[in-house]
């Protein structure tokens, strides 16, 4: 059975188990079963056992801290001082963090139990976790299929019960798509809500950290603990931490309080039949439950993937120029050649194929003679996409779509066709471009027992209402509490 943060909190209050007992259970599960899933790049066995023993002694003092003693993992993109941070790349396979990320700093103050670091697509570039230097992660619902990406290790570890929750990052869907593929909840907050300090940069204007969790309430608990202004990130919004969990459990609300928008034209892109059927059924149900569902138009959203694949690689080509093997990163000793040649050698051997492709796409978009036609154009289209959403939100409280147009695909199926891989992010990318909060929750299982997810996108900074709508849907859908068998 799934175990939520709320379950653990209750378990501690009733003295059903101690932090030490709980952490042993998670560690032995990881040890025995993660060989099949490969969701971790590193497990902090000794350190977390020691920490749990310390928490055993102060267990009685933590009634109001829901995260106390909760076993959590982090995508291997967040720095934790004195621990490796690899971004699942050969480039950083020996990189040791010399400071803490803001996200971890905040979580550690809550006395979480940090289990380890999760596998991911190299430098968060991918939708399948197949580009990891440490090998792919498998989907716990069917180990011949991908868990999604780039936060695939995070999603798989939560789904398999190898961690109670994980923090991931979402640049074009990298929290929501793997959450959907693995049958869990994944939330991308409004851009600027969560500090990017100590989170290795991919596309700085789009990257946003958020929770992958077993329930909407759990996602809210984590969101509340990692949000809030941080002076070390220049795009951190000058706002207090959210207080969404409190609103979720104490406010009175129902479906009749909300209007859902469905961009039916955008959904003509071709949805998998089962996904379409389940989604249409849900819409019918929503109306019966008293919600208002209206058709909306996002005329520029169809350009989101093209826009994204100009902006994100452009920023990546700049951000990843720091990896030269001089200050840190993969470096090969060679007597021959000059400094430039050693940069080329270190970068060519340290980065995988997809990372190289994206750096080069970005370099191309920013290069002399192409800048106006590509980068500048993309920035303008991004603005048009944002305007689409602004218009829509004058009539609706959230926008409802499936999270992905397709079911989890087989390992290797798209590996040699990057464009096909990119196009599967059509429904998640728009929220990143428009900087909006967006959540994926499980909708059900396909005939082959594969998870299907739905996505709700909310208005800027309106995480509270977004979570309320997600919570109502979660109760109505009542997705299985059973863990996948593999």
């Amino acid at each position, binding site marked *: 059975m799934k175990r939520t943060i709320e379950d653990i909190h209750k378990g501690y209050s009733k003295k059903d188990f101690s932090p030490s007992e709980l952490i042993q259970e998670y560690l032995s599960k990881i040890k025995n079963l993660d060989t099949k899933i490969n969701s971790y790049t590193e497990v902090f066995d000794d350190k977390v056992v020691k920490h749990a023993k310390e928490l055993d002694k102060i267990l009685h003092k933590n009634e109001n801290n829901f995260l106390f003693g909760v076993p959590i993992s982090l995508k291997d993109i967040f720095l934790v001082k004195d621990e490796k941070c690899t971004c699942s790349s050969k480039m950083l396979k020996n990189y040791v963090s*010399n400071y803490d990320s803001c996200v971890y700093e905040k979580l550690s103050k809550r006395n979480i139990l940090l289990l380890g670091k999760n596998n991911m697509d190299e430098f968060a570039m991918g939708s399948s976790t197949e580009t990891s230097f440490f090998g792919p992660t498998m989907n716990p619902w069917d180990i011949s299929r991908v868990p999604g990406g780039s936060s695939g290790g995070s999603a798989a570890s939560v789904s398999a019960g190898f961690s109670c929750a994980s923090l991931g990052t979402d640049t074009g869907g990298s929290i929501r798509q793997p959450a959907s593929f693995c049958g869990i909840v994944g939330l991308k907050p409004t851009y600027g809500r969560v500090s990017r300090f100590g989170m290795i940069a991919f596309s700085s204007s789009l990257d946003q950290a958020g929770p992958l969790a077993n329930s909407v309430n759990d996602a809210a608990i984590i969101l509340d603990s990692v949000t809030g202004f941080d002076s070390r990130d220049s795009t*951190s919004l000058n706002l207090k931490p959210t207080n969404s969990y409190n609103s979720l459990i104490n406010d009175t609300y129902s479906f009749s309080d909300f209007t859902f928008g469905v961009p039916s034209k955008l959904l003509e892109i071709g949805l998998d039949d089962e996904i379409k059927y389940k989604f249409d059924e849900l819409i019918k149900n929503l109306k019966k439950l008293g919600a208002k569902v209206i058709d909306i138009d996002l005329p520029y959203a169809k350009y989101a993937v093209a826009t994204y694949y100009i902006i994100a690689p452009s920023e990546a080509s700049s951000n990843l120029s720091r990896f030269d093997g001089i200050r840190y990163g993969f470096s090969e000793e060679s007597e021959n050649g*000059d400094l430039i040649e050693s940069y080329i050698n270190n970068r060519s051997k340290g980065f995988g194929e997809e990372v190289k492709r994206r750096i*080069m796409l970005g370099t191309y978009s920013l290069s002399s003679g192409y800048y106006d036609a590509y980068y500048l154009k993309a920035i*303008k289209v991004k603005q048009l996409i944002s305007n689409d959403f602004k218009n829509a939100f004058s009539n609706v409280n959230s926008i409802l779509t499936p999270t992905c147009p397709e079911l989890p695909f087989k390992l290797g199926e798209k590996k040699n066709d990057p464009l096909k891989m990119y196009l599967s992010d059509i429904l998640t990318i728009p929220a990143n471009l428009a900087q909006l909060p967006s959540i994926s929750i499980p909708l059900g299982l396909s005939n082959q027992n594969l998870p299907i997810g739905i996505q709700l996108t909310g208005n800027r900074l309106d995480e509270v209402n977004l979570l309320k709508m997600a919570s109502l849907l979660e109760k109505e859908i009542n997705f299985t509490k059973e863990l996948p068998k593999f």
Partner: protein
Amino acid sequence: MSSDRELVNKISKLSRLKIDESDIDIFVKNFKDILEYIDLLSSVDTNSEKTQDTIQKDYAVRDDTTIDKLSNDEVLLNAPNKEGKFFAVKKVIESE
């Protein structure tokens, strides 16, 4: 195809990257497919759009004061080659 290959070679040089000769054909094909796809944007009329700065008004500014930084040792923690308190690099200026 040869001009596509030249383009990929030029861009890889600018990116300080090298694509293995054995992978170059498939790389060029994929690169070209993606460029053709993103060309979709050329059909969008953006003449009336200004490039807005993405700075939100809720971003904060901080005082221009010294803050705690990493120590010299911490900065050098991951350096593959170092000499004393410095990063070591290959010679970039030839002596006369």
